[in-house]
């Protein structure tokens, strides 16, 4: 199946050995979308890499920007202002909702449910509108900067955002009614693609797939980054470890993301301030250099450093590792893609089911090939 197949949602190939309709063995083949992002990064200024991050995962651009920025700031010894952190978390959570909505749409389409596809895309558009209003773009934002974010939120943004998340909370009820109350949905998804927690851990599977098996692993709780330790939310879990479980986890995660967004919005309303660190090296990226902070640091005096960040990205746990050897470009950049590992575990969770089960199971993995192949 693939690389040109409606099931793949991107460019990858799944070799399936079948016996009748039953899957005996699978072999995912990745790499069709490899663009060498890690290698290109070695040749770019730090702020220029942000452009690549948007293209890493095209449905969760801001999460990947955030991931890179946190690692880069660590490597460059830069402390962002708190307001910037809140804006980043808000962006990341909105992006999580957008990504999950995209997943919901695509997953339902795989099941043959065409209406939720349109509903998911419609509601995702509202979030993209929000993004457009403060980043200027709908898909490739290039919004976060080493040392903060490019610009503050526009006037009246928080109220508009509140209105959108309120609307979304109502829609989630509708989504559940469309899916969970349908007998056919339950018959198709219950007990499908089971991957129990110990196996998931052994394969390195993370994110909603791991949490659907009853695990409480969530980096936002276990190893809080940014301002997540100041925010109240719960880790969404399910016990069934199947496709329905993953559906439930993602739905609950969207609700929790709304909860986090509301807290961020309240904080942002009460605490105006700068969104960019005051002392920044000017060579961070020539065309994207932060303007207005004249007290820049010279390259030859700049300390070396290592940066590592782990983040709960919509698809799972993403990691970034950056080596700063004092130059204007990073010496080495390495990313961990959660999707790649989640797909590789297909060898474990696909065999034994039927060919017709492949789309819902792989749909429940939430494949994003851009991030997988990098």
């Amino acid at each position, binding site marked *: 199946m693939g690389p040109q197949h409606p099931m793949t949602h991107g460019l990858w190939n799944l070799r399936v050995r079948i016996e009748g309709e039953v899957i005996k063995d699978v072999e995912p083949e990745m790499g069709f979308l490899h663009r060498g992002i890690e290698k290109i990064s070695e040749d770019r200024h730090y702020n220029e890499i942000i452009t690549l991050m948007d293209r890493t995962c095209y449905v969760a651009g801001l999460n990947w920007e955030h991931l890179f920025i946190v690692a880069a700031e660590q490597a460059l010894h830069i402390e962002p202002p708190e307001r910037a952190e809140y804006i980043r978390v808000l962006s990341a959570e909105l992006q999580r909702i957008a990504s999950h909505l995209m997943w919901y749409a695509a997953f339902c389409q795989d099941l043959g449910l*065409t209406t939720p596809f349109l509903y998911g895309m419609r509601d995702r558009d509202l979030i993209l509108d929000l993004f457009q209003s403060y980043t200027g773009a709908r898909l490739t934002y290039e919004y976060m900067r080493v040392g903060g974010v490019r610009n503050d939120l526009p006037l009246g943004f928080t109220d508009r955002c509140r209105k959108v998340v309120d609307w979304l909370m109502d829609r989630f009820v509708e989504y559940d009614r*469309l899916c969970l109350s349908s007998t056919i949905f339950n018959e*198709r998804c219950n007990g499908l693609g089971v991957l129990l927690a110990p196996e998931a851990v052994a394969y390195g599977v993370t994110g909603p797939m791991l949490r659907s098996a009853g695990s409480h692993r969530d980096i936002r709780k276990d190893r809080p980054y940014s301002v997540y330790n100041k925010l109240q939310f719960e880790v969404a879990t399910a016990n069934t470890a199947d496709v329905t479980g993953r559906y439930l986890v993602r739905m609950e995660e969207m609700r929790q993301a709304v909860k986090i967004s509301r807290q961020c919005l309240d904080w942002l309303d009460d605490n105006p301030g700068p969104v960019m660190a005051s002392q920044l090296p000017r060579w961070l990226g020539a065309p994207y250099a932060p303007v207005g902070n004249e007290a820049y640091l010279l390259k030859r005096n700049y300390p070396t450093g290592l940066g590592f960040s782990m983040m709960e990205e919509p698809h799972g746990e993403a990691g970034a590792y950056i080596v700063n050897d004092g130059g204007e470009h990073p010496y080495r950049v390495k990313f961990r893609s959660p999707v790649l590992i989640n797909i590789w575990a297909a060898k474990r969770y696909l065999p034994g089911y039927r060919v017709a*089960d492949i789309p819902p199971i792989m749909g429940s993995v939430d494949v994003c090939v851009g991030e997988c192949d990098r």
Partner: protein
Amino acid sequence: MSPVTLFSISHTIAAWLLAHISYVFPAPAQGWLTSGNVVLGLTALIFAVILLGASMINTIMLIWWERKLLGRFMDRRGAMHVGFAGLLQNFADGLKLFRKDTVRPGQADELGFWLSPTAYLVSSLVLFAILPISTGWNGGSLPLTLLLALVIFSFAPLFIFLGAWASNNKYSLIGGMRSAAQMIAYEVPILLAVVAVVVLSGSFDLTTIVQEQRNYWFWAPLFLALIVFLTGMLAEMERIPFDLPEAEAELVEGWNTEYGGMLFAFFMLADYVRYMVGSILVVLLFLGGWTLPSYIPTILTSFPLAGIVWFMVKVYLVFGVFVWVRASLPRMRTDQLLKLGWMRMVPLALLSVVLAALVVAAHCLPLIGCVPSMGG
């Protein structure tokens, strides 16, 4: 004055045409041209052309209706730009497909590849000739119209499988096999549901069946059979809860993966012809055909062509139900589908036959020999 029928209209046109054309011919040919048999022959031709044109236009309007309705279900507006409210969109689409090159894969079998869409479309269109739309508006009236319609309706898996096999593509072949298995599995409950109707009406003639519904429409006593029939029709039509043969997610486009351009248009058109025929059958068998209940004021039922208008309204509403189902249900799996067909639908259909027999028996108790004119 005899009521206007499609036949009388075509006959008038044919006689008028021949009378005028015959002026230019010498006398012996003139006499032959205006003779009864020639007029009758031309009548049949005109009749067929009108029927074909009307069915095609209706089929294309059905696509429009589905697109608009589906759009509303999905919180969008559907086609809007070509013609008023997108009425001409499908004609434009058809034209686009018509201009496309038809590509045949090198490995495909030539005869089967070309024959399959044509035969599929033709066998579907034939159905319009035998289904009565209103009194006097059908092509042929046979005592066994219903049986003939169902037989022709079940030709489809053969042609689909032919096309799928000829395409020489694994997805096409799997889709074709699924299609055949599914259609055969759902023939049985459909036929049983029809048997229930036949038991109640005492006839295989669709016109008689409609006339027998003058007191009450058959959906009321045969609600179970209606459910079975609707479900079975959904499966026969390969619409969304049962659209496994073209399950997009796993089989790309199923049995018509390799078809493009006009051949694809043929398949698509034939599919919609079948949707139309399915809806027409539901209306004829269960919803009183072109009749309306007696409590409806006569002003609504006495205008010219009222029968056809109400019939089409019903057909479009029934198809609306199919669209509604498509908008709200996911796709089933092959094994679940077959299980549903054999283990749920068949017993339900059998039960509905028993119910129909009981209804007939209840009517017969007071007076003997009342079938088929029960209630009267």
